[in-house]
């Protein structure tokens, strides 16, 4: 964020100078300065700003800025060792800051871009009020997203049940979530007890 600020300040100071006295750009040195002020510094500020925003958009705080997501974030605190999202979140199986993103992304070369474009569609749907009452995934949860972390884990590779269906799992013919309970359990949220994370 600091880098964006520095480039922005530099650009603004120089641009104001050129706006007050445009004849500054006549000399060779002036032309170079104008090139920096009107092109290079803004491009750098835009680039670093985009990176910061993309990072910010991976956080739970960002996801829950749409109120329809609040229940899903709350479900991560369900006090139930069999609840998959809650167990991953509470035991730091996924980053607690970026819990939504870690499971709901596509681990592909353009995964970040793909998921953010989908996210933009969700934001538009949110503003148009065109989202379903019961939110569901567009397509079945791809095993790739689980195997990204678990695929090389000893506990996964040596498990007899996994061994017998390993090929089917990697080929997405059998879904991880068909055996593992994955529900955020939004419908029964009020019936659960919740983990209270201690303050450090």
């Amino acid at each position, binding site marked *: 964020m600091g880098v964006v600020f520095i480039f922005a300040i530099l650009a603004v100071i120089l*641009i104001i100078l050129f*706006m007050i006295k445009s004849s500054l*750009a006549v000399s060779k040195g002036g032309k170079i300065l104008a090139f920096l002020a009107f*092109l290079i510094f803004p491009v750098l*500020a*835009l680039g670093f700003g985009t990176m910061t*925003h993309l990072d*910010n958009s991976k956080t739970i705080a*960002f996801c829950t800025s749409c109120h329809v997501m609040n229940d899903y974030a709350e479900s991560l605190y369900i006090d139930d060792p069999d609840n998959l999202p809650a167990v991953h979140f509470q035991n730091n199986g996924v980053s607690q800051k970026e819990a939504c993103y870690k499971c709901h992304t596509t681990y592909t070369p353009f995964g970040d871009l793909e998921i953010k474009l989908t996210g933009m569609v969700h934001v538009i749907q949110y503003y148009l009020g065109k989202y379903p009452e019961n939110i569901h995934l567009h397509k079945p949860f791809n095993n790739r997203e689980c195997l990204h972390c678990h695929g090389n884990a000893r506990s996964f590779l040596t498990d007899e049940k996994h061994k017998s269906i390993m090929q089917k799992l990697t080929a997405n013919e059998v879904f991880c979530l068909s055996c593992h309970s994955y529900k955020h359990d939004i419908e029964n949220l009020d019936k659960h007890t919740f983990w209270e994370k201690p303050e450090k």
Partner: protein
Amino acid sequence: MSFINKLTKDFKLMGILIIVGLFIEVLTLIWIHHIAFLSFVVGGLCLVLGMLLFVVKIFFKTNP
């Protein structure tokens, strides 16, 4: 052509667009919210438009 000349003759329009764009960008960075993200996109468009005008200025050599 004269319209482009008019737009790019001095640095005022492109300067304002870039300053507004940068201002929005910096402002949105401190807020983690989807509105901030959308504002950032709008600010980015202002910025790109300002920079495009500058590129046009270089291309057509509309010196002050």
